[in-house]
């Protein structure tokens, strides 16, 4: 039982990080119908941005909450800029083209970031500095909750709440919903589509950056290829919840994080990566639109 609770806590903590990345996938898919394969690499870049910012600013050597927050916001800003650049120069010129071309471009950007990262940062793994001193908050029996797990859950939940507010209670958010519903109609209503799509990428990339910093804190080993599988799993989480739906992405990510922890805990860690895809196939065969997705019928 204690073991189960421990896995439950670890799973929720992992799941909330997946959630932050999955939101980026689901928002971009909702608005452009594009699987943004580069998103996982934006997340990877954020851990490296965080790594270097922390070193240059000296926070790596003196752990403090303020320092961690500054690094978090700097990395988010840098990644937002990166996401904006990717959309502006790689995706926008191709928007009218067949979707497969857009997808190849996304793969191209992803490869560019991975391989460029290997040259810039070196291919060998690095260790993310301890921005906040690791401490054990709670210790009941065999269950232990570290402050990192709490930070991860609190930070991701607050960002998700903020996102929910932006999407449903601001004008830009309403415009985003309109654009994802129908591009031309939205532009007839006087919405600047280019600006909204840029904003979506900025928002998604900033959230991925937050996830990157949280991962750096909780699992310090970072390398330029860490975004590949993580991104893919976050994407699967988004599909699981119904791609295009933000609450779906969060629920999907929690299911993903929990089931992954359970498989590692009770079964075998080698099947950890297969599980994600197994879940994916089950859900797609049973309910292809995901848990929260809307069914749309195709018309001639």
């Amino acid at each position, binding site marked *: 039982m204690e073991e189960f609770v421990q896995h439950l806590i670890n799973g929720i903590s992992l799941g909330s990080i997946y959630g932050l990345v999955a939101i980026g996938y689901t928002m971009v898919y909702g608005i452009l119908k594009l699987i943004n394969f580069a998103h996982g690499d934006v997340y990877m870049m954020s851990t490296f941005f965080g790594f270097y910012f922390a070193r240059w600013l000296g926070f790596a050597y003196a752990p403090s909450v303020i320092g961690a927050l500054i690094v978090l916001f700097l990395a988010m800003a840098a990644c937002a800029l990166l996401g904006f650049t990717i959309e502006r120069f790689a995706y926008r010129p191709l928007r009218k083209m067949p979707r497969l*071309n857009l997808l190849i471009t996304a793969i*191209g950007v992803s490869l560019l970031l991975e391989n460029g990262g290997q*040259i810039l940062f070196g291919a060998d793994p690095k260790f993310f500095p301890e921005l906040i001193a690791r401490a054990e908050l709670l210790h009941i029996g065999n269950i232990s909750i570290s402050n990192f797990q709490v930070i991860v859950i609190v930070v991701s939940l607050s960002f998700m709440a903020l996102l929910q507010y932006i999407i449903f209670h601001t004008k830009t958010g309403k415009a985003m919903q309109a654009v994802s519903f129908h591009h031309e109609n939205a532009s007839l209503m006087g919405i600047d589509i280019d600006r909204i799509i840029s904003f979506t990428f900025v928002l998604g990339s900033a959230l991925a950056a937050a996830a990157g910093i949280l991962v750096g804190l909780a699992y310090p080993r970072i390398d330029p290829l860490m975004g590949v599988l993580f991104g893919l799993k976050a994407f*699967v989480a988004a599909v699981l919840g119904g791609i295009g739906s933000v609450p779906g992405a969060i629920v999907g990510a929690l299911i993903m994080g929990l089931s992954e922890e359970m498989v590692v805990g009770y079964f075998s860690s080698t099947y950890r990566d297969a599980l994600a895809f197994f879940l994916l196939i089950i859900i*797609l065969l049973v309910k292809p639109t995901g848990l929260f997705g809307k069914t749309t019928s195709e018309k001639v």
Partner: protein
Amino acid sequence: MTKQILTFLVISSLLFLGNFIIPSVMNPYLFMILIYCGINIIMGVSLNIINGITGQFSIGHAGFMAVGGYVSAAMSFYFLMPLLSLFPSDNTVLSLLCQNVLFVFSLLLGGVGAALFGYLVGLPSLHLRGDYLGIVTLGFGEIIRVIILNLDFIGGARGFTGIPAWSTFFWIYFFAVAVVMVSFRLLRSSHGRALLSIREDEIAAESIGIPITRYKVKAFVLSSFFAGIAGGLFAHFIGYLNPSSFTFIKSFEAIIIVVLGGMGSISGAIVAAVITTILPEALRPLQEFTKTDFRMVIYPLLLLTLMLTRPEGLFGNKELSDIISPFLKRKKSS
């Protein structure tokens, strides 16, 4: 029909001659690139059947290549090699013939294994449309890889060593020519027209009485059969298989070939397969010049540039013959 068979025989006999000449005149490095070109042609052209001609979006091609490679490698390693060792191995024509017959048998078995997998994957998932199909095939590809990773009798994560190196220039290009000719024949048949109609508009195709799922599954099975053959050829060329060679990056490479060449263009896929194989190698001198491996950055950059400047691919929807024939006609009239 007889004309095609004749062409095939002529090409095969030329390849057979080439099999003796090329390895002796070419240096081993260039020969290796040539072999990889052949394997990539099989991968690209076979994926073109499903992605280009049928217009279905599959990102799991590496999975089928892995199945084919492992099935045929296991067959050769556990059954055919012991069988062959019963005969005297004296490099006579007879023993070479035996070896090659067994090799083709093992390749075909690998192909059938992959096709069977293709059927199992395709049957439930080809009901899905567009991106969802892509995601499912991606998932299946990764699952296949993880399963192989956990099977100990074929090496698991250590990789499968000791596969006999039976692949030759002849067999690789024999199957490359076979997949190209099958694709062309398919494209010009009523089956091919049905597939094209599915690509153009699924609903319209269905409304004129084409059973779209059945046709999609057929295309999928054919495509995975050839991917399996490519896997078998690859396994028997390197003599070593590792699950990490069949990640989704490998599937992307195949998709890049199809899109680069132009969706649905068979000659485009061939040219693109050659380009994508040679390009990273051609950039190698640059690496010696700059001391850092910039190749892997230049490759995606070129890909991006091509997508941005020529989104329809090198050949668009055309074949090489469509581009050349106007010139030939002009010559005749003048």
